[in-house]
């Protein structure tokens, strides 16, 4: 089967086959970054617009590198959300970008569902680079890609996701993706940061970090955003580290070769200790490398599908 979606908005709507297609395509793209000339002409003449309503360096740069390795032209637009209320609507912005004859919008937005809405209103491709608390599909895909690369398979693995599950798009996308690929997922967080009915997503829930680590083949540690505070009750930083922080001490009780992942940027001494972040179990920098391959695959697939949609091609 092929890829037929013009957009990548989330992992919830993808089938197992579609997830596997992205992962296998990303494998082919990983080789490109290992060449001396790290560039292929696949998206030559295409324009990718990075539309970021939230400050983000890592994701934006990763998408930019991915697009450039595909020979696309990249335009970065960073907009302060505060000005959005006064300024033009998201749909108008989208249509303006479309009028520039751009081909793909990569969007980061602080409102859940913003990418879904934009995609409904424009004909160009929309890739969700994180919307509110909803989804961050490419982050989850690169996490899953790294996991598969390290452990050789996904089916039957145990993965724990630790941190602010309630406010995490990374957690949601990982849960959808991993469970569809046969991974057993446990989420671990202080009770106040576990969203209602999360178990209906097919995950086990615990607030005991040692329990979460015990059988895990990998642990994905989320970034804690204490600055978010104000509306939800939040634990204090040191308290959090004491109860949920990943330390060598805690890892001793886990599987010897447990993989430690983090979407970055790391708060050292809060989510995990430095010796874990830099230790043998950590694959954090490999995640960054793999992020390029995964995003190249996604950009290529949506561009190809949209081209076919425009040409009214028959997919069968």
């Amino acid at each position, binding site marked *: 089967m092929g890829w037929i979606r013009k957009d990548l908005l989330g992992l919830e709507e993808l089938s197992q086959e579609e997830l596997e297609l992205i992962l296998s395509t990303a494998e082919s793209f990983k080789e490109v970054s290992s060449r001396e000339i790290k560039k292929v002409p696949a998206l030559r003449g295409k324009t990718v617009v990075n539309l970021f309503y939230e400050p983000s360096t890592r994701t934006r740069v990763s998408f930019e590198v991915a697009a450039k390795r595909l020979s696309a032209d990249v335009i970065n637009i960073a907009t302060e959300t505060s000005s959005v209320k006064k300024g033009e609507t*998201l*749909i108008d912005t989208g249509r303006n970008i479309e009028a520039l004859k751009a081909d793909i919008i990569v969007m980061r937005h602080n409102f*859940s*569902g*913003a990418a879904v*809405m934009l995609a409904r209103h424009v004909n160009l491709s929309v890739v969700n680079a994180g919307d509110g608390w*909803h989804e961050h599909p490419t982050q989850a895909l690169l996490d899953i890609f790294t996991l598969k690369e390290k452990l050789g398979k996904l089916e039957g693995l145990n993965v724990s996701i630790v941190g602010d599950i309630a406010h995490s798009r990374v957690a949601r996308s990982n849960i959808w993706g991993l469970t569809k690929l046969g991974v057993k997922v446990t989420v671990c967080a202080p009770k106040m940061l576990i969203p209602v009915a999360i178990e*209906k997503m097919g995950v086990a829930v615990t607030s005991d970090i040692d329990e979460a680590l015990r059988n895990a083949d990998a642990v994905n540690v989320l970034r804690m955003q204490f600055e978010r505070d104000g*509306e939800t009750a939040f634990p204090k930083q040191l308290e959090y580290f004491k109860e949920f922080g990943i330390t060598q001490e805690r890892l001793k009780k886990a599987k010897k070769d447990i993989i430690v992942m983090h979407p970055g940027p790391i708060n050292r001494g809060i989510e995990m200790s430095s010796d874990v972040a830099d230790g043998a179990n950590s694959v954090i920098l490999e995640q960054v490398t793999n992020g390029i391959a995964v995003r190249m695959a996604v950009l290529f697939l949506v561009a190809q599908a949209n081209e076919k949609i425009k040409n009214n091609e028959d997919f069968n």
Partner: protein
Amino acid sequence: MKTLIKGGRVVDPANKIDALMDILVEDSKISKVAKNIQGAADKIIDASGKIVLPGLVDMHVHLREPGREDKETICSGSKAALAGGVTSVLAMPNTSPAIDSKENIKIIKTAIQKSAKANCFICAAITKGRLGEELSDFASLKKEGAIALSDDGSSVDKDALMLEAFKQAKKEDILVICHSEDKKLAAGGVVNLGFTSTRLGLRGISTESEYKRVERDIRLAKETGARVHIAHVSCQESLEIIARAKKNKVRVTCESAPHYFTFNEEAVLGYDPNFKMNPPLRSKEDMLAIRKGLADGLIDVIASDHAPHTENEKDIEFERAECGVIGLETELAAAITELIGNNLLDWSKLVLKMSLNPSRILGLNKGTLSVGADADIIVVDPEREWVVKKENFYSKSKNSSFIGRSLKGFVEYTLCQGKVHKWNS
């Protein structure tokens, strides 16, 4: 001017009529209801195969005038009402300025006289500016023509002030309509709290934020003996509280809206702001409880909570979009499709919920086809299916949850005070 409606199935529960009959209208009144009325008429409406009902009375409508004429006006809203078979509406006071003084009632009364196509009645604000701080002057509001009071859109948070409001309302014998919502418990939510809010990554609104306030409003009303009507009930727990109160002879009535018996929270999964309303679409179990409440009589009234918003306010990011949907033009067809279609109501009970009960609750002389009554009559083709389309709305705003849906039951004629309107699409 004589209009004869011939051969339709006339359903008029006030007079215990459900039979093939003719209705003769002379000028603005019903002059005769009988089988085979003979004689000359200026206009004859062939209603064979059709259902003839009293015009609907919708006791929860936002006409937006004065202040937000870009969303709706009394003219456009009342035309939309007629197209939906609604001949009388109760206009909510959350306009700009709010209808909280006799001066402001005069403004809206003048506007109604000038441009209303249907019967428009006035609901005034409980508190000045709807701010929940200071009661408005109920006596003068009533004298000027308000037939009910509500801070709809908000609840009066202060218990003592609300208690005083009920006392005054009891004294003036005026109905209080409660938008029962504890905004603190609602916690800035935009969808129902549950698996859906978790899936969508949106803040959730608990049912607790609704039913706790329903409980309080009923308790305070009971203390004072005032009449209270709970607006837009959306969840099971609220219904249980209302059922208990009714059993204990509290003077409480309540309404729900077509979106609560048609949709549930899963409709929000595509982030379409046309499914964003307050209270939010609840769980499937809640939706079924609303249906049951309508079937067994616990819910007295179906009202649309017609809440027009412009595309600029609606077709934006879900979290920023305004709450509410339009409903005047789809409520009858939605009720026919979902409630009559699923054998939850028969035609008489439908008339009760959508015409007679609201008339009685508001003290209006409407909701019947009695001889001498105002000729507010609708002729409905019960079998005709139609697809709800954005471009066919008479309302100035198009924010309907029903767009794209196929509904059964089409209003062919609306007579309002004897004036005949025929609808084609």
